[in-house]
């Protein structure tokens, strides 16, 4: 490649090849646009390389080991040993398969892939700096651009990630052995998922959280189920404790925390994982040169067509703000591509589901009872406890419940909160119900396979109507 400038032109320049960017690029190419997708690190972005996929791989594998370890009462005798290096190598294979799949899908749809770091030069030009010395750079002129640069973990002051004592989720997902002990700073979904992984792998895990509950933002009865199980797994929780500083110790690290009142505690462990949230990646991107504004937190504000305040520049995914989830990024990628192609697409989804892959899983979609009330509905609520589910009993996983929220008057389904094995899958049906404007009767009137966990969704809907068969309707 020639050092210096080569100018190419493209209908759509997509910056960042995470789930937002690669989906937007593929969809735009399907709609006959000429698309260039630039990525500075690894195709697939955070999600495939350091997020959703690696975490779910380690969650599944350590869960398998844990369940069989606890299988004696079911007549299974095993003493599973976990070889973390082997598990991570398997996880890397999974990641490689998916990221090379993404490259193939891009090429198969005619997307031009470019490796390098993009920086906007003006409203219609970006400069792409190729990695490595002497690799040069090139200019790309675009009709439209889609910013999909994602997010990175927030660094707590004093807790810079060093890969040795203080880990980010990225490093925690790539360990070559199980640390004997681990302090997890932050009980959000990433902290809770990884705390569970390492507890099941055999670490002594302590979670410290500044707020007063695990998974802040979720309803108390939802998080209670997860916390109870986490405690059974040996995870130690300390709430109201903000990480203040750390020192090296003989064993590894001592994390010092402080309560609001200023009293200090110390937690010793081999390593600390800090998972206190994620922030948008917009630095060195030249957004101002392109005339695109960011908000006070660095996110790029967008409208319901995923447009920034520049008509022809779009922003999708984590960089465009909450909810910072891969499927939101993908949905926004779809919309951005279709809007550019002149289709009547919009971000008009009624509900965005979210899952936490703890033990048991949490799956939520649409409104909680309180949210429904705030929105002016009179909520009608039905629940079904998992311990009454035949399928849950046969899986030996009976912690949790399905709750469904509807509007009392119309009986339109408004939301669901599910804590159950496969809760991440079970929300799909409720999501469709919400999008379709289905009523409780429609859910109850759909035959559900026996014995399945999805019957619990139907039972919760029936319970809301006072006609559940497998629970006593209050």
């Amino acid at each position, binding site marked *: 490649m020639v050092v210096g400038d080569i100018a190419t032109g493209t209908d759509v320049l997509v910056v960042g090849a995470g789930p937002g960017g690669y989906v937007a690029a593929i969809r735009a190419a399907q709609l006959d646009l000429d698309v260039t997708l630039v990525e500075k690190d690894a195709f697939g972005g955070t999600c495939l390389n350091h997020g959703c996929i690696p975490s779910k791989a380690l969650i599944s594998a350590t869960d398998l080991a844990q369940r069989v370890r606890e299988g004696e009462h079911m007549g299974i005798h095993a003493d599973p040993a976990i070889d973390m290096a082997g598990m991570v190598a398997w996880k890397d294979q999974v990641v490689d398969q998916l990221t090379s799949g993404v490259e193939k899908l891009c090429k198969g749809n005619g997307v031009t892939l470019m490796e390098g770091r993009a920086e906007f030069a003006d409203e219609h030009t970006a400069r792409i700096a190729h990695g490595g010395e002497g690799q040069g750079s090139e200019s790309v002129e675009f009709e439209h651009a889609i910013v999909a640069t994602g997010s990175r973990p927030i660094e707590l002051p004093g807790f810079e990630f060093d890969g040795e004592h203080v880990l980010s989720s990225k490093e925690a997902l790539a360990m070559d052995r199980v640390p004997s002990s681990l302090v997890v700073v932050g009980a959000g979904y990433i902290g809770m998922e990884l705390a569970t992984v390492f507890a099941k792998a055999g670490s002594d895990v302590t979670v410290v959280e500044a707020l007063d509950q695990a998974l802040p933002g979720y309803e108390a009865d939802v998080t209670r189920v997860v916390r109870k199980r986490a405690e059974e797994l040996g995870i130690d929780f300390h709430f109201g404790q903000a990480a203040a500083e750390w020192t090296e110790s003989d064993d590894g690290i001592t994390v010092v925390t402080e309560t609001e009142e200023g009293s200090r505690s110390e937690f010793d462990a081999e390593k600390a994982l800090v998972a206190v949230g994620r922030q948008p990646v917009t630095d060195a991107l030249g957004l101002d040169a392109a005339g695109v504004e960011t908000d006070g937190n660095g996110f790029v504000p967008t409208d319901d067509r995923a447009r920034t305040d520049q008509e022809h520049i779009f922003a999708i995914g984590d960089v465009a703000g909450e909810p910072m989830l891969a499927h939101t990024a993908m949905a926004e990628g779809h919309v951005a591509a279709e809007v550019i192609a002149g289709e009547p697409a919009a971000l008009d989804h009624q509900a965005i589901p979210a899952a936490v892959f703890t033990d048991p899983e949490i799956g939520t979609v649409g409104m909680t009872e309180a949210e429904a009330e705030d929105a002016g509905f009179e909520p009608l609520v039905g629940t079904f406890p998992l311990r009454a589910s035949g399928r849950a009993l046969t899986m030996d996983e009976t912690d949790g419940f399905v709750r469904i929220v509807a509007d009392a008057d119309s*009986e339109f389904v408004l939301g669901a909160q599910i804590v159950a094995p496969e809760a991440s899958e079970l929300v799909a049906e409720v999501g469709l119900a919400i999008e*379709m404007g*289905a*009523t409780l*009767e*429609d859910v*109850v*009137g*759909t035959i559900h396979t026996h014995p399945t966990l999805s019957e619990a969704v139907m039972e919760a809907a029936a319970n809301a109507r006072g006609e559940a068969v497998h629970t006593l309707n209050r």
Partner: protein
Amino acid sequence: ATSQTTTNGRVFAAPSARRLARELGVDIGAVEGTGPGGRVTEQDVRAAAETPEEPSEDGT
């Protein structure tokens, strides 16, 4: 042994709309749907119930 909603074809309507049709004595198979793809909505069923030419009052 009763004459019922669908004949040989399929009716594309939510369970709640189908039940409403029975309740109102409307032959849902004969209702023209105004929803996407011709889906029969509850409103379509109610409208059909109000037009007098549909005398079927089966549906205890």
